[in-house]
Structure formats: structure tokens, C-alpha cells
């Protein structure tokens, strides 16, 4: 017999939109359950630049989206202090770019009130030596870098601390309906196959690229425009600020520094399958060639991996543009009662990482209006616990780099990690590239959850560095077994999944050092550890 959960609102999708909605509901005192088919941020939310938009990019074409982004930029800097680096951005005009556009852009920024500042080209080049020496103009913008992984974890953590419930690895397989009203969802556990019925007064579809599939379960036609974009990760943080090209938004013109790396992208190709995150070498080559306009030495910089994600775009009159560049980046809030005559069901899609809080606000406003509840939104004032933990780890003996990371990372988990570090015989670093210790890994393994190295990676950066898990993945699996966290059978599977996932991203970028790194990884896992090719799973 299926398990039953009763709540007020079900949120489908553990991306930044869904988690934002969950937090907003929790802040307003509404009981809610979030369900996610895989781990938090499995979809678009972790497959992006990690750019905290200033809005500048959209000022000319989409004023509303630009205004929204700038307003949210300021709010997020305030409410998510531990996950944002206020790097600032530099928009530069290269000779090939249109002078008129620059004028329009400056004017539009002024009209909206986005504080941009022109700086001498010489200064821009001094600050960012990798920039094209031929640039003709440079402007400072309040763009920033936001860590999507940390954002998700912190937003969910805040919601859970306020009473919300989260079920990851639970996929929605059916809707519970009563006449023309959705009254709940049926979810299936990814690992056990067990089903759970969740009854609620309102179901919010925040499934991103899968929003169409979820709507289909409710018998509603919803044509999403899933626009696939590719990004690459450079091995090192070779610039200080976000670097942008000052022209009509196009492909391959944004570099964002984040932690110890730099991310560059993107492309845009519409795809039918929301699970399609395939990578294409040619697409990447084209992107790099275009990127040379901003960073001429781009081919000399080591790329550690590539990835792709699907922008879940939506507009009522579907556009024939296959690049998706002309589809609005604004949010789309669909009231299915009005649109399709189905009660108890709302879809929120479109939008940007930067505007996720606002998307949640309008969604919850609508949901509560329908439920006849009147509680104002305060999610723009409630501050998520900071990641800083400077008062901790003072007496712990460990590598200063690992300690430095924890002090900027541990946040509310600091106390638990510190006491674990004090207990350990050795505080050896498991993931050297990103300075992760076992104590930190242990703090993110869910008590009753499955041992999944990818989930650990998203929460600690384990395996995100240049070696991409060549050395840390087997270490973490071995220690997990030794510590009784998992069985050796599960650890084997987890290792295989993790390595295959990493290999996919490295493979497409494997030239030079990256090719050697991949070879080293293959040698260790296939030759030394005997993980065989035919046992590979699709990930």
C-alpha cells in the first residue's frame, strides 16, 4: 500500500524556482512538500554560468526582464550573502561590435537605473590582462557570481528549518484528480520504486524543462521551448570580474569567475527532450572561436570539462526561432484554471536564476489568492544563514587552504564539522583540488539517504577541480565503506556513476592536458581498480 502524505501545497521540481517557492511558502507559514525526481538542481539550476545578472544584458531588448533582474540582484546580495561573490562585471566593445548598440545600451541602463560606469580601456586591460587588447570601450556593471549549488542547499535549508519537507529522488508519476481539480501527486522513489501519494490543496509545477511533461500528467498541453546551451569550465580563475561582450545578446560572450574556476558560454539550440544534455565537440569549438573576441588566448587556457543545460523558455505564441535568443527571459506564470479549466494547479517557468525569488513571490501570491489565504511576502527581507564560519576551526589542525575553504563554506554546519575534525585522527584532505576533508563530506551525507558521489560533489565541490575526481572519488568511496556509511556494493555503483558522469564532461573537452587527465583517470579506474566499460550505466 502506498504511503500517504497530506499537506497544503506540493511543489514539483527541486531547482532554484521550486526551492524558492518552497521557501516562500514556508516563510508565509504554509505547509509544503517539494518533490524532485533526482537531486536538487539536477536540471537547469546547476547547469549555468552562476551569473548574478545586473540586468544590463537585457536592457535594450527586454526592459521588464532587465528591471526585474537588477532589482533581484540587489535583493539576493542582501538575502543570500554567503553564496554570492560581488565580483562586478565588465562589458566591453570589440571593434566588430556595433557603435549604435553601445549608445542604446548606455541610454537604456540609465533609464532603468542600473549603475554602469565607463572606465578607460587601459584600466580594463590592467585589471583583466586576458581581455582582448583591441577593445574600444569598457563599462563596469554590478554583475556578480552566484553559486547555484550553495544557493539551492541554503534556500532548501532555510525552508526546512521553517517546517517545509523535501523529497529528492522522488519522481512524479501521476496526478491525483477529483473532477477538474488536481488534489495531489503520486511520486515514485528512484531507488526503491516505492510510491507515495501526496494530497494537497494546490500543486505548483516548477519542473523547468520537464514542466511540459508534468503538465501532460495533468492532461494539460504545455509546449515548452527547451533551449539547450553549452558551457565550459576553465581550470583556473584567470579573471577577477565577469566579462561580457557589449552587443545584442548572442552566443559565447560571457565569462564568469566562480570559486577556483571560470565558466564560459553559451550556445542555444532548441531540443525536444528535456533530458537531452548531450555535448557536441563542434558546438564547443564554435563557441571557443567566438570567445576569442573577448579572450584571444582562449585556446591556451585549460578546459577541465564542458556541460550543457536546458533553458525552460515559454511564450504563448511559440516562436519559430531555433536559437531561442528571441524568446523572452521573463517569467511565465500559468494559471491553469484560467488557461485550461483545471483547478489546483499552477505552472511557473521561464525566468532566470537571478530572478528566482521574485518568481516564487508571484507564484505563491497567486497560489494563496486561490486558496483564500492572505499573508504578504517577506522573502526579500528574510536573510538565509550566512556561509561564513570564521569563529570556528581555530584550534583544528589542518591545511590552511582546507580551513580557509571551510570558513567560507561551512555555515550552519560548521559546529558539526568542527567536532568531527577534532575527533578524527587525521584531517587529511580527500579532494585536493578543492580542499575537501572527510568531516565535510560526512556532514552532507543524508542520514537515511543513498550514498551518491554526485550529490556530495554538489554540496562540497569534491571532484570539481582539475583532476575531476581522478583521485578523490575512489578515496571517498573507500572511506564511506570503511566508516560504515554505505556497503561496498553501493559504493562500487556510486563510483561507477560518478566517474561516468565526469568522463562525459571531460571527454568532449579532452585535448592537451585534459586528454592526459582523462587518460590518467581511465588508467586508475579501469586498469588499477578494474571498473569495466560494459558495466557502465547511463547517467
Amino acid at each position, binding site marked *: 500500500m502506498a504511503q500517504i502524505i497530506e499537506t497544503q501545497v506540493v511543489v514539483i521540481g527541486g531547482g532554484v524556482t521550486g526551492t524558492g517557492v518552497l521557501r516562500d511558502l514556508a516563510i508565509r507559514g504554509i505547509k509544503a512538500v517539494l518533490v524532485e525526481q533526482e537531486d536538487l538542481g539536477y536540471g537547469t539550476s546547476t547547469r549555468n554560468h552562476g551569473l548574478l545578472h545586473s540586468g544590463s544584458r537585457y536592457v535594450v531588448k527586454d526592459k521588464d526582464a532587465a528591471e526585474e533582474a537588477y532589482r533581484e540582484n540587489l535583493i539576493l546580495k542582501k538575502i543570500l550573502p554567503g553564496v554570492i561573490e560581488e565580483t562586478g562585471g565588465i562589458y566591453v566593445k570589440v571593434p566588430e561590435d556595433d557603435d549604435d548598440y553601445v549608445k542604446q545600451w548606455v541610454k537604456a541602463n540609465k533609464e532603468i537605473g542600473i549603475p554602469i560606469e565607463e572606465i578607460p580601456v587601459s584600466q580594463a586591460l590592467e585589471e583583466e590582462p586576458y581581455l582582448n587588447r583591441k577593445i574600444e570601450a569598457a563599462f563596469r556593471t554590478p554583475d556578480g557570481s552566484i553559486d547555484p549549488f550553495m544557493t539551492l542547499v541554503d534556500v532548501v535549508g532555510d525552508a526546512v528549518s521553517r517546517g517545509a519537507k523535501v523529497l529528492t529522488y522522488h519522481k512524479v508519476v501521476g496526478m491525483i484528480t477529483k473532477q477538474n481539480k488536481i488534489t495531489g501527486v503520486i511520486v515514485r522513489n528512484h531507488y526503491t520504486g516505492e510510491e507515495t501519494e501526496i494530497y494537497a490543496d494546490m500543486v505548483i509545477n516548477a519542473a523547468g524543462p520537464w514542466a511540459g511533461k508534468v503538465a501532460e500528467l495533468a492532461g494539460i498541453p504545455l509546449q515548452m521551448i527547451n533551449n539547450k546551451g553549452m558551457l565550459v569550465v576553465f*581550470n*583556473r*580563475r*584567470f*579573471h*577577477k570580474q565577469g566579462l561580457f561582450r557589449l552587443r545584442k545578446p548572442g552566443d559565447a560572450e560571457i565569462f564568469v*569567475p566562480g570559486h*577556483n574556476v571560470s565558466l564560459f558560454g553559451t550556445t542555444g539550440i532548441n531540443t525536444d527532450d528535456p533530458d537531452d544534455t548531450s555535448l557536441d565537440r563542434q558546438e564547443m569549438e564554435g563557441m571557443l572561436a567566438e570567445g576569442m573576441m573577448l579572450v584571444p588566448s582562449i585556446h591556451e*587556457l*585549460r578546459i577541465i570539462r564542458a556541460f550543457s543545460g536546458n533553458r525552460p523558455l515559454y511564450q504563448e505564441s511559440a516562436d519559430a526561432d531555433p536559437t531561442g535568443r528571441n524568446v523572452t527571459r521573463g517569467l511565465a506564470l500559468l494559471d491553469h484554471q484560467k488557461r485550461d479549466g483545471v483547478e489546483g494547479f499552477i505552472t511557473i517557468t521561464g525566468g532566470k536564476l537571478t530572478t528566482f525569488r521574485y518568481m516564487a513571490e508571484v507564484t505563491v501570491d497567486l497560489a494563496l489568492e486561490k486558496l483564500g489565504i492572505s499573508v504578504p511576502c517577506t522573502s526579500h527581507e528574510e536573510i538565509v544563514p550566512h556561509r561564513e564560519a570564521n569563529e570556528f576551526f581555530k584550534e583544528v589542525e589542518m*591545511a*590552511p*587552504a582546507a580551513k*580557509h575553504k571551510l570558513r567560507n563554506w561551512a555555515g550552519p554546519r560548521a559546529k558539526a564539522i568542527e567536532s568531527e575534525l577534532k575527533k578524527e585522527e587525521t584531517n587529511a*584532505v580527500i579532494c*585536493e*583540488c578543492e*580542499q575537501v576533508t572527510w568531516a565535510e563530506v560526512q556532514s552532507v551525507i543524508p542520514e537515511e539517504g543513498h550514498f551518491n558521489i554526485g550529490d556530495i560533489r554538489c554540496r562540497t565541490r569534491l571532484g570539481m*577541480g*582539475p*583532476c575531476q575526481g*581522478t*583521485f578523490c572519488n575512489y578515496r571517498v568511496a573507500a572511506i564511506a565503506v570503511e566508516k560504515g556509511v554505505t556497503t561496498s556494493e553501493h559504493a562500487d555503483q556510486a563510483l561507477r556513476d560518478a566517474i561516468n558522469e565526469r568522463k562525459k564532461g571531460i571527454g568532449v573537452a579532452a585535448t592537451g*592536458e585534459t586528454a*592526459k*587527465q582523462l587518460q*590518467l583517470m581511465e588508467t586508475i579506474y579501469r586498469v588499477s581498480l578494474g571498473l569495466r566499460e560494459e558495466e557502465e550505466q547511463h547517467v
Partner: protein
Amino acid sequence: MHDLACPEISFDSCLKCNACVVSCPVSNVTLDFGGPKHLGPELKRLIENQEFIDDSRIEFCTLCGNCDMACPENVNVSTLTAFAKASHSELGGSKFRDLILSNAELVGKVASTFAPLANMAMKMKPVRKVMEGVMGIPAERIFPEYRFNNFNRVYNKTTANTHRKVAYFVGCYATYNAPEVAKSFVNVMEYNGIEVAKPKQKCCGVPMFSNGRMKKGLKNANDNVNNLLQYTRQGYDVVLTCTSCTMALKKEYVSFLQSEEANELAEHVYDADEYLRMLYEEGELNTHFGQMNVKAGYYAPCHMKSQGIGTPALDVLGLIPGYEISDAAAGCCGQCGTFGFKKEKYEVSIAIGKQMVEAVEETGADYIVTECGMCKNSMHQLTDKEVKHPMQILSEAYEKAQNR
């Protein structure tokens, strides 16, 4: 926070393979050192365009350069650790002791002026106890002796007029502690019809680099580059008898200064045996050596290995009739320049030296041959073998042929 810009970007190539860690003499005996991979390429990546992270364990890096040789990807690991040392010293300030130790040239000048007194004092237990307490220089550690008749007092030739001309970079050790090595070198060159000039020179900077005094070291480096280029541009070859000075001129100046001048100079720099080996290959070497029935063991200093030129001393000494020499293949001596003179490093220093002792004793040699004065110092401390510089042996072999 610190204004030392490290121009090195080879860390981008690090595959994390640990070859450098395995080759590191310090990492092999203690876990207190973070290792070359972490304190070199790894840490550099973690601080690029981010907040600086100071790791005091960098003090345990001896700048031996074994990591550079081990790296399959040509990461300049020791350049990165040298700059990490420099940043660490800039932040925390140098200890008085390290200022003294890094100033080998000044110490040499003063100590050789008062040589008998200085040498005596360094052998007096109460004096050494005070030095240990006040300065952290271990009382047990033997110090090299200083010579009143240092090489600067006895040799002042600044030009050469032969076909091949040598500009001799003497180095502090041969100048103040072992003028007999310098004299032997001049003899050996004379036997080959090559005149030796002694250009104006400053301490090569190695003791400064290894004590994190990068700015001072770079100043000396620049001065030496400028002085020596005046010679090389007139057709002189720069030849050295100290492997650490040689490595500095060949490798460290190039990667620390990143200047065209440093590159230009490096092309003309030779280790003394490397130079003789070249003469031999060109058919120019005087091979008129006397018979020497000796069984010797060769000990290659780290700074010889890190030049990547093999073991030229073995190649050249092997030409002496009757001379039997084998490579002790003994790793690092543990003295590591000024490293072994520091109290907090003493234990590690002795632990590193252990394998050298074993290897040296296994050779069953009459005496040990090595180029490095500091390795010699360690060997004095840890073994009862006599230690000679290859130039002393070659000089003897030429003299024997003469007197026959």
C-alpha cells in the same frame, strides 16, 4: 597583502599525479610539510584572483628542485613554492636567524676576516648553546669552517685572453669556505690552456630564495645577470663549481626574473664538469691524467640533478686511468643549504640524511666526491668519509701526470 607577483602559470598543467610528492625528500620523511603539489601548483590555483592563503608549512620546502625534474607536465613547481615562501615571509617577517643565514656573502666576508676566532667559536659548546637558545641554530649541527685567505684575497684576475675564455662564478662557499676548490678549478682550466677571469659577482641568491627573501635575491640576480652578460657578450663562457649557484643561473633566474637577459645568460652557463665533458666531446680536453688507484663514491647533489644534465663528474673523472668511481645514488643529504642550520628543521634534516649515510657506506669507497659544499657539510656530520670536489681530483690527476 603582498606585492610579489608570481608570473608562473604552468600550474594550469598539473595533473595531480603526485610524481613531485614522491620525489620530494622532505615529504618522504615527514607529514608536517604539505608537499610540493599542494604548496606549489595546487595552492597557486586556489588563490588566483582570490584571497591569499598563507601556509607556514612552506618553510619546509628546501627548493631542491627534485619536483621540477619529476613533473611529467613541466610544471615549474619550485618556482611556485619559491614565490609561496616569499609571500609567507613578506606576511610574517623573516626571523633574525634567517636573515643571517640567507646572507651567506656577508657572513662569509665577516667570518673569514676573523676566521680563526669564528671557527673556534663555532666549535665551542657554550657558544653553540647560546646560539641555539637565541637564534634557533641547533648546537649539534657542524658548521663549515671559514678561511682567512679567502679566494677574493688570492685571485683578482678579471680578464682572459685565451681562445676559450672562462668567466668563473665562484660562489660564496668556494670563496670563503673552500678556496682550494676554486684554486683547483683555475688549475684545471690552466692545464687546458684556458684563462679564468673572475667577474664582479654577488651571492647567487639561492640562500635568499630558500629563506623567502625573494626581493633581495632578485636584486642579486639582476646584478649578476648584468655583470655576467658583459662577459658572455665578449665570448666568455660562464663556468661554476657550485651546483646551487649553477642551478640559480641556469634555471631560477630564468623562471623568477622572466627576462630576456636572464634567458640570454642561461645559454652560456656551465657546471665545471659539464664544461670539461663538452671539451672532451669536442676533442679539446687535455686527457693527460696521471694514474690514480682510487675507489671513490660519487654523490650527486639535488641541485646537480635538477639541472637535468646527468652526472658530468662521473663522465669526466672516469677518464682518469685507474680511477674507479661509482654513483652512490643516494637521494638528498638533508642539509639543504640553510635548512639544516635551523633548530625546528634539524630532526627532519637528519632523517633525510639517513638514506645518504646508508648509500654512502654501501659504496665502500675510499672517499666521497661531490660538488656541493652543503652536502659535504652534511656528510661530515653524518659519516666519517672524507669528501672532495671533482676539481680537486682532476687538478691532482693533472699534477700527477706532470710529475711523472
